[in-house]
């Protein structure tokens, strides 16, 4: 695959996200998987925060864009059966960790490129979590190899998104829509959907994954990583995302350099670090960050679909149980949730290892 595609991926993501926040999405939140999953959960009535209820077309677009691209490229491969319940649970904690930081890895980059230097703590936590996850991967961790599944099973997530899309346009009374708060801050529906479709398609085409790109630096080492075309491509996408998002934020006046007074931030740096550490660790264990889980679920991966459903539940409970970080800091329930999540993930890592073995075959895909 030409390197230009990877650069284009980062450009589409960076410029697309900043365009969305410029045209109405919350500040520093042009695209955020965790925040938008919370909005979708609220719209479905899964939590009662009236300020976070909206069926975000961006998420719907991501999944459908990836779905159509996978069909077009004949890469829609129904698979599953690799510890789906565990993935559901890890998906739950992925979103909890993101809500503690007040953003997923995509939003983390958007916050950094908008001048929020406090978000660097999240980056440090994410990298630490990835490193820990790779220790398990390199020492025999496995969730089991996926096996072929009936095609109908793999259509569930894409069809669910089609259903949500219908609800976006029909607007029935049982779907909630915030009239104030961050859920009421939204870019035009067609713009959101269009950019989501484009990002989803490109992400499927390039197999983009933020945590995957960072993980390969540790797997290969800083010298060898550029000898691997796929690793090079992922890193180029990451770099391109960063650069284009930075320029877009400056050009659109969304760049405000500093530690204080940043949107979607707090001064609980320790918990932000641990929250993103949990995201990094979980992402490595289930082979993908929250964005990657959505894309993979669209191209037939039922296990990723289980993770996506776990993410939705995590988004709902983060609001219902007050787990999410706020400008005031990290609530006690959120602190306990992060510690519990880390403990559970570490336990999963220990209990699912085959000692004396190296990287399991399902984690070797794409490393050759």
């Amino acid at each position, binding site marked *: 695959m030409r390197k230009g595609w990877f650069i284009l991926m980062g450009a589409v993501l960076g410029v697309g996200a900043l365009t969305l926040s410029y045209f109405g999405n919350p500040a520093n939140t042009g695209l955020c998987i965790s925040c938008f999953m919370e909005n979708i959960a609220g719209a479905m009535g899964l939590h009662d925060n009236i300020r*976070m209820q909206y069926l975000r077309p961006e998420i719907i677009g991501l999944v459908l864009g990836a779905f159509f691209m996978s069909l077009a490229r004949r890469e829609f491969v129904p698979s599953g059966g690799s510890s789906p319940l565990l993935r559901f649970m890890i998906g739950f904690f992925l979103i909890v960790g993101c809500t503690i930081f007040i953003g997923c890895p995509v939003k983390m980059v958007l916050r950094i490129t908008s001048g929020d230097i406090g978000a660097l703590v999240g980056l440090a936590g994410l990298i630490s979590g990835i490193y820990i996850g790779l220790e398990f991967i390199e020492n025999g961790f496995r969730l089991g190899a996926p096996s072929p599944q009936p095609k109908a099973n793999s259509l569930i997530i894409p069809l669910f998104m089609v259903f949500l899309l219908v609800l976006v346009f029909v607007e029935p009374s049982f779907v909630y829509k915030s009239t*104030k708060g961050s859920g009421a801050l939204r870019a035009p529906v067609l713009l959101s959907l269009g950019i989501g479709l484009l990002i989803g398609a490109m992400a499927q085409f390039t197999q983009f994954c933020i945590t995957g790109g960072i993980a390969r630096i540790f797997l290969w080492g800083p010298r060898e990583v550029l000898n691997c075309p796929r690793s090079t491509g992922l890193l180029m996408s990451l770099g391109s995302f960063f650069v284009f998002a930075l320029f877009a934020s400056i050009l659109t006046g969304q760049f405000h350099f500093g530690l204080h007074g940043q949107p*979607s*931030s707090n001064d609980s740096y320790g918990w932000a670090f641990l929250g993103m550490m949990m995201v990094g660790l979980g992402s490595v264990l289930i082979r993908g960050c929250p964005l990657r889980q959505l894309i993979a679920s669209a191209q037939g991966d039922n296990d990723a679909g289980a993770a996506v459903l776990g993410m939705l539940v995590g988004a709902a409970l983060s609001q219902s149980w007050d787990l999410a970080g706020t*400008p005031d800091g990290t609530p006690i329930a959120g*602190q306990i949730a992060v510690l519990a999540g880390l403990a559970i993930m*570490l336990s999963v890592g*220990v209990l699912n290892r085959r*000692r004396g073995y190296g990287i399991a*075959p399902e984690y070797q895909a794409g490393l050759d």
Partner: protein
Amino acid sequence: MTTAQDSHNRQSCRIGMEDCVEDEPLTLKSLDRLDRLVIIALTVIVVAGSLIVAGHSGQSEAAKGVNGVSRQAVVIISPEFDNKLKVANTLLSSGNIDKAGELINGMIEDYPYDGRPYMLLGDLHVHNQQPVLAMLEYRKGVDLNPDFLDKKAELFRGKQIKNILEEAHVAISSGLEKNPDNPQLKERLEILYYMLRRVAGSCG
């Protein structure tokens, strides 16, 4: 002769068909370096979690207070209350600060969970050119009713609050320059940063 159990074992083997073995039971002897690190980490996590829970349980109900941001606004629907708000506004506009203060403090006593009287008290402090005290009252108002910082809400006053915060920042900074160890100023600086984050906006 292949038994059904052998077939099942081979199918369940995930790493290397040629050397498929059943999982060894986890014993102390089989623990390697990674296992030991994880056990240490789990111990630290359990202890930390217990300390957090114990610390939170040990706090008095008053000390626990409100967890900063409230999602739902308490808005008193009462003609008498609305009338008092209008009168207080009028008194402030006409410069009758003492009577306004008396009326506003009475409303706070009678309706402690509605944010509007606190916002009026903040306006009173603005009249008296005390931006720091204004900031403290705006904080209470905003915590009780997030609509004051919600661009989509009728009660939105984000721009005005932001201007006052800038003045408060100047006042606190100059105070800290003269007296860098003043704990009250440091606390107010933290509140200022919190208010700046609130004004900037957040998910949730």
